[in-house]
């Protein structure tokens, strides 16, 4: 997206030169197609490295935790919601941030693209005007981006940043008539036994590398429960019970906080759709508390407030 890139670089350069930010956090072009690298820039002469395209799928909010300087950060819809969550959870201060807002048209699902070219090796990708072309040794194919969105982007209802200091473009239109929870509803209709085998199958390839957890901005605990050794809550082998425990518990730790940014799924080396866990809890948060994570700096998340007028009858 050349228009956005020019604007991002211009803003970043200004921030560094005027001393309004000590560092800029953004993406630079990766060394292989469809993977970009999060980057930290201090020198205004290096802002040319900053890019924005449909492969900026790792969540930059992940890199904010505990930083002390003034930071310029680029943020699309979901990243901005994670930034809000980070601020509300005291992981970073709003005053430290200069948020360069990006109206987002979604990320390309690189796995789906690979499937569409029968796993032949993709050597280059170019995109323009809602389409993209992939090239390999003896093939070239052009696709519509809308057919290859990451599954979370395909149902995203908050593509525009919810908090920003400056926008790089006009807000994009919010899609209508989308049910973001179709997949959750399908699972909800299963019997308990079916659900169990669905999830057992889902996580069976898991190698417990924790890329999903580490890619997630919500998982900033100094010691994760799976790493705790005294007491040790979960076994560390690849015993299916322990693997399942990890996934269930992590999902619950994200309840009411997950923005469905998709970074977890993107990072998984074996392509497990781990959002199936968190999305159910997103739906529950919406159904039970009319809550979607990271939309407002002024509201406490549902699981950390006590309200006397809570409409749920379990509150006495």
């Amino acid at each position, binding site marked *: 997206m050349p228009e956005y890139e020019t604007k991002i670089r211009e803003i970043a350069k200004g921030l560094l030169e005027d001393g309004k930010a000590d560092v800029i956090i953004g993406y630079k072009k*990766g*060394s*292989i197609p469809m*993977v*970009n*690298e*999060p*980057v*930290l820039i201090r020198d205004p002469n290096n802002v040319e490295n900053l890019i924005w395209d449909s492969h900026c799928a*790792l969540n930059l909010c*992940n*890199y904010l935790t505990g930083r002390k300087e003034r930071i310029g950060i680029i943020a699309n819809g979901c990243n901005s919601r994670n930034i809000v969550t980070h601020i509300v959870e005291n992981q970073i201060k709003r005053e430290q941030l200069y948020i360069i807002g990006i109206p987002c048209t979604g990320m390309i699902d690189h*796995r789906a693209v*690979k*499937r569409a070219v029968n*796993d032949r*090796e993709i*050597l280059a990708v170019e995109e323009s005007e809602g389409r993209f072309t992939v090239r390999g*040794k003896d093939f070239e194919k052009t696709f519509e981006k809308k057919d290859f969105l990451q599954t979370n982007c395909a149902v995203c209802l908050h593509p525009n940043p919810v908090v920003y200091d400056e926008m790089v473009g006009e807000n994009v239109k919010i899609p209508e008539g989308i049910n973001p929870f179709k997949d959750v509803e399908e699972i909800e209709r299963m019997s308990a036994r079916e659900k169990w085998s669905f999830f057992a199958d889902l996580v069976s*390839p898991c*190698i417990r*590398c*924790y*890329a999903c957890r*580490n*890619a997630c901005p919500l998982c900033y605990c100094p010691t994760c429960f799976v*790493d705790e*050794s005294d007491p040790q809550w979960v*076994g*560390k*082998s*690849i*015993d299916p019970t322990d693997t399942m425990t990890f996934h269930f518990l992590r999902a619950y730790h994200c309840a009411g906080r997950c923005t469905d940014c998709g970074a977890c799924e*993107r*990072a998984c*080396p*074996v*392509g497990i759709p781990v959002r199936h866990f968190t999305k159910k809890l997103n739906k529950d948060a919406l159904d039970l508390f009319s809550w979607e994570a990271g939309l407002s700096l002024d509201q406490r998340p549902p699981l950390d407030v006590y309200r006397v007028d809570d409409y749920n009858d379990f509150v006495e």
Partner: protein
Amino acid sequence: MVTKIFTKEEWVRALKGAKDDYRIYLPVKHKDFHAFELLSDETAPDFEFQNTRLSPKSLIFPQSERMFEYSLDEKDGEAHIVKETPKDFYPQAVVGIRPCDAHALQLVNVNFDNPQYKDPWWVKRLESTILVGLGCNEPCSTCFCTSVGGGPFSERGLDVILHDLEDVFLVKPITQKGETFINKLGQGRMADDTLSDKAEAKARSSLEKVTSSIPTGKLRDKVVTELFEAPFWEEVAFACINCGTCTYLCPTCWCFDIQDEVLGKEGDRIRNWDSCMSPLFTLEGSGHNPRSEKCQRVRQRFMHKLKYYVDKYEDGVQCSGCGRCVRYCPVNIDIRHVAKLMNDFAQ
């Protein structure tokens, strides 16, 4: 040793015929990627792959392995005595292993089987394994085996090598173990000169198709402490999320952790793969962690592979150039770039 020719159907049929004498593992496609799977009558192997997502390292060095077991039942005369869990060293064959992954096992072997230490389970399992390699006609753009002592048809570490000649496999034994395996399969016919020449020409041309490389020539001469303190680590490490993908997918990473798991009165001592990317890897009992920062961990991975190993074993780098870490690092930390930074570093 006799080189043979099998049609692809014959080859799979012959392997199926041998599956009572050997456990045979073959590449099978699952959803989006290939993995080695135990051959059964139903298995549909697929040799049209670049490489398996995970390396076959786990067939010799399982991700989780029960080492010992013990009883905590005081009524048991042998309570608290740690006994070795019986292990299974049934002969196995890994058919379709890529040359880089076989080379990688040789690099790991340096750690598990040396004059100072011998890991009995690794040694016995490697001994009971036959590695039947599949040469790479079409190396990936991220493969750099040729610059680290291997090659798309390198025979290093293999017992047999297969050349894929479209309709047929040329099956060339390299070791005695390999030849015995091929003879056990029966079938196949002797390769004639035309096919052998064709196979050689193809192997030569694929050598040129490896376009990626890492520079390693100057690593040996660097001063460890200078490289350790080089200014580039902070920048290299910034994007890393310490996920462990690179080390778990790597065919040359050998680190493990030992854990006791107790259920009721029965205990198991298990070893699990571990990764220097995890903060827990170096957490000491006192609570002190010498590698508490991400940057230190990222540096450890590259220093181990490209410097400590180089210095300690004088056997090149601890990397076989398979390219997995390049392809699957979610944030694109590229060992080719880091190797260049290290190799070119001057104080």
